[in-house]
């Protein structure tokens, strides 16, 4: 769902994809039909983040979006943001990408870059001298702060590897849990930037193990970080759980890594693709905390509700009533709510282009989407003895032949217990005959046991020969 615009932003009058977090002037749209692919408002998107991740995201969008207007917008915002910081390498990169297209204001200012580098050298020397001073004095707290400052310095200058090393070195000098938390959060930040999510998981658990109770914001941050690590590792179920456990205290406090809209999107999509119905209901739909996040991305909220509250008209259901209660509590009999799957899948398609521009989610989009689609199909066929393939194809807005191929793949994978009557285009549920199957298995086990036991006795005999030969040779 899109928020209506107060003022048109961007060169093409785009509609906002993500309304501003904490946005008060934006209206929420009600449940209307979904419009075709809206383009992302780069500026609104970028305003959700701060620090290095803002720049990285903008550069990523510029690389991937394929639309020159958007690309230039992203690059311009990135340039402005970089100039506020001290990373000369990133500055050069952004300038070369702009390649002069944005006018003389946005070209490579060599003087600025050089002055940054010079200042960096000076500051580095100063910090290192201070640190060696502290080390000779052996004051733990000063050494810790010295390393921390060095880490901050390297981070600001884009030398992430060195930043990481220095942050890790503060570990030995941490005395209170507050120090440990600070160290862990720093390391997590750098590791996410570096893409080394193993370290992220490690340090999240380290932080969670501190004896003091953590404040809710930190807890929320750690949960998000853990969720991101699981997402990268393709463990969607665990990622979903972590995102769903994130408290609403997160707000904008972790804008250097993740925005609350992202928590909603990642959590929602991962949950849809990996949870079963009960878990979906308990952890997502009935989850009051998560509802706060979902309000920020109404599309994801709608699509989850559509997926869950599906009625399945159009199959022969052996006497079961054909009605199903929707979430609003209105009985819907014979209502065209079988279109629920279609609308859910449509929301997904509309979200797709923007999700492909997200640095964490882009390479998981395809997998998640396929999994969600499969889940939808399985859920659709589950309660029936027979399903007419034409009706089902309409519900999923696809052709019968394509649907048949998808069903065939799912049946071969053993996700659906059914068989296809290709002549009449009907899907029949099929329940294996337990008794026959048991007999078959029993006979098979007997055969295998016999074969293996005989082979074993034979081999034992051969080994005995070898042993006898060796014994004979010794004598």
């Amino acid at each position: 769902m899109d928020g209506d615009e107060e003022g048109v932003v961007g060169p093409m009058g785009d509609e906002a994809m993500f309304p501003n977090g904490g946005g008060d002037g934006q209206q929420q749209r009600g449940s209307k039909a979904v419009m075709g692919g809206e383009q992302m408002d780069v500026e609104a998107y970028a305003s959700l983040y701060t620090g290095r991740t803002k720049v990285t995201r903008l550069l990523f969008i510029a690389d991937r979006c394929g639309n020159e207007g958007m690309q230039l917008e992203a690059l311009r915002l990135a340039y402005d943001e970089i100039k506020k910081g001290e990373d000369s390498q990133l500055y050069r990169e952004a300038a070369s990408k702009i390649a002069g297209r944005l006018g003389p204001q946005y070209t490579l200012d060599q003087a600025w870059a050089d002055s940054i580098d010079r200042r960096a050298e000076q500051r580095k020397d100063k910090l290192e001298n201070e640190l060696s001073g502290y080390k000779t004095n052996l004051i733990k707290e000063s050494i810790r702060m010295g390393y921390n400052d060095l880490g901050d310095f390297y981070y600001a200058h884009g030398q992430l590897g060195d930043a990481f090393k220095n942050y890790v070195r503060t570990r030995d000098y941490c005395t209170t849990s507050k120090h440990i938390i600070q160290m862990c959060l720093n390391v997590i930040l750098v590791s996410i930037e570096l893409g080394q999510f193993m370290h992220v998981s490690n340090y999240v658990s380290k932080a969670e193990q501190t004896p003091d109770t953590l404040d809710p914001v930190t807890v929320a941050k750690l949960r998000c970080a853990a969720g991101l690590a699981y997402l990268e590792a393709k463990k969607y179920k665990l990622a979903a759980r972590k995102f769903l456990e994130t408290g609403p205290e997160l707000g904008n406090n972790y804008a250097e890594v993740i925005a609350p809209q992202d928590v909603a999107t990642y959590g929602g999509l991962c949950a849809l693709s990996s949870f079963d119905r009960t878990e979906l209901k308990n952890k997502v739909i009935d989850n009051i905390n998560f509802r706060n996040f979902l309000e920020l991305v109404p599309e994801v909220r709608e699509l989850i509700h559509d997926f869950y509250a599906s009625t399945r008209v159009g199959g022969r259901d052996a006497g079961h009533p054909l009605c199903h209660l929707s979430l609003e509590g209105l009985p819907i009999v014979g209502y065209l709510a079988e279109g629920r799957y279609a609308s859910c899948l449509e929301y997904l398609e509309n979200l797709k282009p923007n999700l492909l521009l997200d640095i964490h989610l882009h390479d998981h989009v395809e997998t998640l989407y396929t999994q969600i689609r499969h889940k939808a199909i399985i859920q659709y066929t589950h309660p029936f003895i027979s399903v007419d393939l034409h009706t089902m194809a309409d519900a999923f807005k696809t052709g019968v032949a394509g649907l048949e191929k998808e069903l065939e793949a799912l049946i071969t994978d053993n996700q659906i217990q059914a068989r296809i009557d290709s002549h009449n285009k009907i899907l029949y549920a099929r329940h294996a005959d337990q008794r026959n199957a048991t007999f078959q298995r029993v006979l098979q086990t007997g055969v295998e046991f016999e074969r293996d036991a005989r082979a074993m006795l034979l081999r034992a005999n051969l080994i005995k020969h070898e042993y006898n030969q060796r014994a004979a040779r010794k004598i």
Partner: protein
Amino acid sequence: MDSVEALVAHVQALSGNPEEVSHLHSLLKQSEDSLRSQASRLLPFLEQLDPSKHSLGYLYLLEAYSSGPILREQASGYLLTVVEFINSCSAEQIRLTPDKFVSVCKSFKDQVMQLQVAIQGVAPLRTAIRKLQTSSEHLTTLHPDFLLLCLLSKCYKAALSILDDDIFEVDQPRDLFLYCYYGGMINIGLKRFHKALECLHNVVTAPMTALNAIAVEAFKKYILVSLIHNGQVPSFPKYTSATAQRNLKNYTQPYIDLANCYVTGKFSELETSIQTNIEKFQADNNLGLVKQVLSSLYKRNIQRLTQTYLTLSLQDIAGAVQLKTPREAEMHVLRMIQDGEIFATINQKDGMVSFHEDPEQYKTCEMIEHIDSSIQRLMGLSKKLSSIDEHISCDPAYLTKISRERQRFDFDDFDSVPHKFLQT
């Protein structure tokens, strides 16, 4: 001359009862060399002896005779003599010198192969095996020769009675390799693929310290038969020798490529893979098997269809299995129905095939008997296993070895091993 006659007289005199026979045995052993030196003139003496009563003496003379060169003209006469001897000799007497008996049979086999009348050798060797075996679980050196003759003469069925015996006792490991390899080939000829798989599996997983050519050839056939029977080649089980695991794959690369192509299920890829390596397959004499692998790919794909569809048009079957016309699909399906590999009916009017479930209900008398006999067999087998286990735990060598390891622990903790065995 005299010594031979004297020997013959001894043989005739001393073949009455076991003590005399053992006395005779020692006499015969002493005169072995002299017999050998007069090999060519022994034939007439053989006629004086009766093979059933004087088996031991006859055997010695016969063996000495066959150790010398046998002339072409005498060959068929020789064969007849041997056959008669084998058929009528007494088993206890020949078991006193099994190696002589084996060498006679081997020279018999060589002669038969030289004259290319392998089929004449099949029945006599089978009788010979039965007489030489101490029990039906015993593998003699004659087993592989027998199977070789069956293969050469294409009398596969004659080998069945020997093949169906379970082997638990082996004289020579090398015999086992050859026996299992030939046995696998015969089973392939009889299209009993699961039994062939068992035999070849035994060769591949037998304990061996050095790789031998038999294992390599057996592995090649093993891959092909696995593909035909199961659709995939299983990985080596844990008990395979390290030598086999490391080295077998190096010698059988074309077959491994074939197996990988097969698993993808695409007919055209499989064909190209076969074409590239066709000379190698031909050189190994495996081309027939390879062709069977090719046709089994269709069968497997059609069988997969039966799991997902209730009815399917012939057109769709042809498309799914990559056949060219629905007519070919119909022929394949028809053949599979006839062979009992799938259960279906073809509706020619609509061009539809309906797949059915396996009609076996496991309720008939035959099925009950089948299950019952399986249970009996398995109970026998597990009794055998437990008796072997008991036997080994009483074996002194085993106990000494265990006690050596137990020295590490306190004597008080483990007192089930008697002290006698604790001194090594």
